[in-house]
């Protein structure tokens, strides 16, 4: 499954990059979400996959029995998801406000800070 997921992550990355290279800010945001999903999945796969054995210590034991899933990447991914949400929400609102102020979502025309030189 690691191999299959590696291919899937590659596809997600390619889609994300293609979307982020678009001129439309909304497409950029779609790409951002895909990229953050791909990143989370990368961390998860990097810790290897273990089916059917969550990292829990059974009652009355001091440590999990047998091989359980790698807890460390899970903790990393969990916070990454929440932070990714914060980042996404901020980017979304930024785009929203930019559209309200500038009347466009085309990034080529968003040049308030660095205006085109004549």
């Amino acid at each position, binding site marked *: *499954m*690691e191999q*299959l997921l*590696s*291919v899937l*992550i*590659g*596809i*997600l990355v390619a889609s*994300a990059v*293609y979307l*982020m*290279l*678009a*001129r439309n800010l*909304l*497409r*950029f*945001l*779609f790409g951002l979400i*895909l990229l953050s*999903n791909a990143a*989370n*999945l990368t961390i*998860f*796969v990097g*810790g290897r996959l273990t*089916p059917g*054995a969550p*990292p*829990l*210590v059974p009652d009355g*034991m*001091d*440590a999990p029995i047998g091989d359980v899933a*790698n*807890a*460390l990447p*899970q*903790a990393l*991914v*969990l*916070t990454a*998801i*929440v*932070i990714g*949400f*914060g*980042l*996404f929400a*901020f980017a979304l609102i930024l*785009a*929203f*406000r930019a559209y*309200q*102020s500038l009347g466009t*979502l085309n990034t080529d025309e968003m*040049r308030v800070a*660095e205006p*085109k030189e004549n």
Partner: protein
Amino acid sequence: MTPAGLIPVIIAGSLFIWFAQMIPVIGGGDTLRYVWEWVPSLGVNVSIYIDGLSLTFALLITGIGALVMLYSARYLAGHVHQARFSLYLTSFMLAMIGLVISDNLLALFVFWELTTITSYLLIGFSHDTVKARRSALQALMMTGVGGLALLAGIILIGTTAGTFEMSEINAMDGVLKDSVMYLPIVLLVLAGAFTKSAQMPFHFWLPNAMAAPTPVSAYLHSATMVKAGVYLMARTHPSLAGTDFWLWTLTVFGAITMVFASVMALRQTDLKLALAYTTLMALGALTLLLGNESGYTITAAATFLVVHSLYKAALFLVVGILDAQTGTRDANSLFGLARALPITATAAAIAAFSMAGFPPFLGFIGKELKYAGAIAVASEPIFVAGAVLISSALMVTIAGIVSFRPFWSKSGTPIPNVKEAPWPMLVGPVVLAILGAFFGIFPETLATTLVNPTVAAIIGNAEDAKELQLWAGVNLPLFLSIATFVLGFTLYFYKQKLREILIGMTTRGPSFDNGWDKLMAGIASGSKALTRMIQTGVLYHYMVVTFGTALVVLAVTLWFRSTGIPAMGVPQVELWDWLVFVLVLLGAILTLVTNSRITAIAGLGVVGIGMAMIFILYSAPDVAITQLLVETLVVVLFAAAALKLPHLTPEPLRKRWLDALIAIGLGVVTTVILLKVTTGPIDRELTTFFETASWPEAFGQNIVNVILVDFRALDTFGEIAVVLIAAISIFALLKAKPEEEEQ
């Protein structure tokens, strides 16, 4: 007198006494060295090395420093920023002392830069005037660039010699001279020395530095800081001098600077500027003399160093008094003030005699030695002696303009109601002028205490030092001296006419100062063009560069560092896996190709749910729950906002082949890297720790949660802080009204 004015005087005075008590030891031919390790890994030591050269400089710095500080305590009394001034001046003095007593070249460099910075602050002391700010910046840039070159030179010296301790390097005979790095080292060190000591063509910052208050000009820009370059040349002399390259570079640059500066001095009507150019002349003379290795020239350099500092500081302070008491320092409006300013006039006269080189003053001995030294330059005595003759004659003229005319000339009416300066301002010029006279009459007192040890420090042998004497018999230097006076007096009487000719010539000729402005403007527009090139303001360009760079770096690394694509067996893939794979794939493709906002958001939702399923399948219940909840919120928020945004316009693939190329490239590279990572070994040490410690130490059965809230709680705290900051930023973004609405 305020404490702000007085404290620096006390500091400088105490340091002077401390250094003065070393005279018997150093004068006896010994040297002192103390070493403390500072950054041992880089070979940087705080090492103090005191020989004749350091001690001479240290005494000049602290002695003249004390007098100048006493002077400025009165000169700047009542100024709003007097305390600031005192702080700058004292910091400068300490940096300068550090520079001349450091044995470690890297420490020397640090102090070198500190003098640059304090000089910048002092030139720009009147920061409310444009001229002062420009001059300060100019001085900072010039000496700063030189400082960088010096640093490079020092590093080359250190790597060539294997140590940064200058006393050790000087003791290794020829370690630098015989090295292939000799030429770069000399070029870099001289670049530092020439900018600091204002040699042509790096000279123009020094006259501009006269924007500083007069005590600063007297102290930094004539007696001490500008001589740091001279110090550096003298300090490295044992290791670097003695080659034709050294000889010719110093001789030519020194001679040109000397002649150019003395001619330019004649052109000035501002007395302070005239003095500034004579300082340039003196620096040129010192550079010229240090090109040689003969006992004559080095003795001349050591003597002239002291002589010049004494009379030049005195004359600057005199001009400061004139300025303060009359309100002008224009040579054409100051006449016959000797009656009103008797003490100043006397001090000025004594100092000027020394500057002009009359017997029995110290300047006479200095000049005689310069001639003797010039003649001793075996290869080109006529060229060197001629340069010395012209500039010395002009010194006579300038001395007349600065010290004779304002006090004794009857060619104009004196400014009325001028009062003699208060005593703190008189002490400096008087003491310095008298010292010049005293050493002239009893030259052996200076020779045995300072000059001979300095000569010994530079050429390693005190016996080579030539005797300082007022009457050396009827010889060539004496005739040259007489010629100097004749020429000098002649020029003095034709000064007005000469000045007009010079002004005519210089206004038509190219100006270094304008060139500087053009250079700065060129740098500014060049950097603007560069900024425009790399910072286009178009998001697309940034993204292409970012992803393109990532692709190239990753691909190149993979190509050169990897052992090829790992061998893959038939993967163990269940039906469920395939289902999830297809689900996520569909979601991604849907988002990629659609032109409908709702479809794209739905596609993203599918991807997110597929992710959650992967987490569930592979034993990450906490992550799966989080992913599902966040995905829900993303879709809700996105739907709320995106529907207020315009429809997507198609961006056809045929116009975006480059984007597609980058995207596919990055996707492939990511997959290959992950395949390599997942087939390689994994270090589970950390996970094992968490697994075994979770229950016994943290009383939690859910290892993921224990990591989050206990083992790595500080990280989690940082993460929730980020979430909160995002929320606050969004709140601010939404609540703040756009500018158009406010107006």
